[in-house]
């Protein structure tokens, strides 16, 4: 008879917990690189493991073994602390996402607000990291990261509030339950889904909006001084953010998992991969925008659209 505590430990460390999330993060990075490569008529990772699936892990360990330089002029504490904090903040919200069964590991009323808060904290951390590296390009990169945060923060939160209003609760699990017996949010709030996708692209700093680390202009932006273990952690945090973004889109708008634990896992993964595909497609289809395009675009189009969407839901009173 497996006692209760061991079962919880297994849940936290093994199945929907760390081990599963780590492998999901590495798998998603591989999936993203492979899809973008196929869009661009080339192969993508091939040689490490079957079809190159172990490539992200290999990159991670390679970076770990690399020399870890802390520049003399950088102020040490925030510079060293930032990657670790970024990784923990990236993993934390994933525990509120329902993967096995319709409620996540920790699901309480208001965990959607927790996720939103953590996501804006991450953008702040990026700013601090770039600023602490006191490199000229790093400073410009972190200013741009800050600017970008102002642009996408409000429309993103508004578009996340949409499903909460229609489901009448601020917990991701309850929203998923409401969608199971109700209708998928994406059908009644398509505009909200589009706005959320664009803002998540900006949050993940992916191609159309990878302005803070635009390598062809400011040589890597805020990432420029990080190397070795710090860079490994930051890239891993980036993968986790990608998993968080896709699973948010999947659970808030596409209905999330339902049915007994093994079917819910499959449905969750299917929707998750669909959202990851959408994000990869967007990454391959655009050139990089300038920071003022993003700011004007966000304030002129994204925020009003998100507001309109929220008013529509209230008006229908679902």
């Amino acid at each position, binding site marked *: 008879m497996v006692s209760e505590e061991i079962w919880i430990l297994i849940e936290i460390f093994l199945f929907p917990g760390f081990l599963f999330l780590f492998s999901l993060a590495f798998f998603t990075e591989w999936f993203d690189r492979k899809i973008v490569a*196929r*869009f661009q*008529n080339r192969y993508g990772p091939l040689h490490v493991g079957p079809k190159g699936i172990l490539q992200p892990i290999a990159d991670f360990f390679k970076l770990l073994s690399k020399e870890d330089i802390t520049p003399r002029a950088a102020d040490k504490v925030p510079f060293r602390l930032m990657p670790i904090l970024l990784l923990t903040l990236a993993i934390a919200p994933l525990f509120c996402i329902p993967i096995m069964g319709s409620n996540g590991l920790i699901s309480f009323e208001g965990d959607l607000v927790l996720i939103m808060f953590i996501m804006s904290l991450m953008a702040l951390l990026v700013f601090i990291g770039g600023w602490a590296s006191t490199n000229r390009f790093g400073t410009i990169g972190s200013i741009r990261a800050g600017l970008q945060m102002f642009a996408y923060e409000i429309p993103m939160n508004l578009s996340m509030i949409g499903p909460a209003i229609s489901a009448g609760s601020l917990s991701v699990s309850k929203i998923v339950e409401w969608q199971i017996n109700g209708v998928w949010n994406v059908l009644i709030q398509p505009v909200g889904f589009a706005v959320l996708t664009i803002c998540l692209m900006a949050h993940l700093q992916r191609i159309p909006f990878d302005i803070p680390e635009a390598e062809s202009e400011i040589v890597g932006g805020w990432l420029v001084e990080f190397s070795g273990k710090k860079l490994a952690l930051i890239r891993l945090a980036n993968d986790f953010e990608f998993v968080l973004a896709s699973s948010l889109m999947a659970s808030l708008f596409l209905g999330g998992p339902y049915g007994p634990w093994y079917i819910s896992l499959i449905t969750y993964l299917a929707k998750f991969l669909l959202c990851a595909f959408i994000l990869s*497609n967007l990454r391959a289809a655009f050139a990089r925008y300038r920071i003022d395009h993003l700011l004007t675009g966000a304030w002129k189009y994204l925020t009003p659209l998100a507001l309109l969407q929220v008013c529509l839901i209230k008006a229908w009173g679902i």
Partner: protein
Amino acid sequence: MAMENDMFKNLKEKPMTLRFPYERVEPVEGIRAKVSWDIEKCIGCSLCVRICPGNAIELIGRGRRAEIRYNVGRCLFCGECVDVCPTKAIYATEDFELVFNSRREMITHFKRKKNRKKS
């Protein structure tokens, strides 16, 4: 955005890039790569030595018993020597993947059959 249909079409097609060590492209038939000598035909006229832009060819000895030291490192693969050689002793090979791990290996010394016993 305007590339959408093009991108989805490519999703199905086989990628354009080659997996180099396993899939190779065979060289075009008129390719000009490393040159090589048929030393028996060579009459030691040193026309090729003078024409070579990269000074890659060196003649040792004179007349019928001359030998050629050919340094691939300095060769430009321009094929001037192939054109200028009166007795067509120089011919172009198809091997363009040239890798050496020391400068000495780059130099090939074309010896004649009779001399080989002596030197």
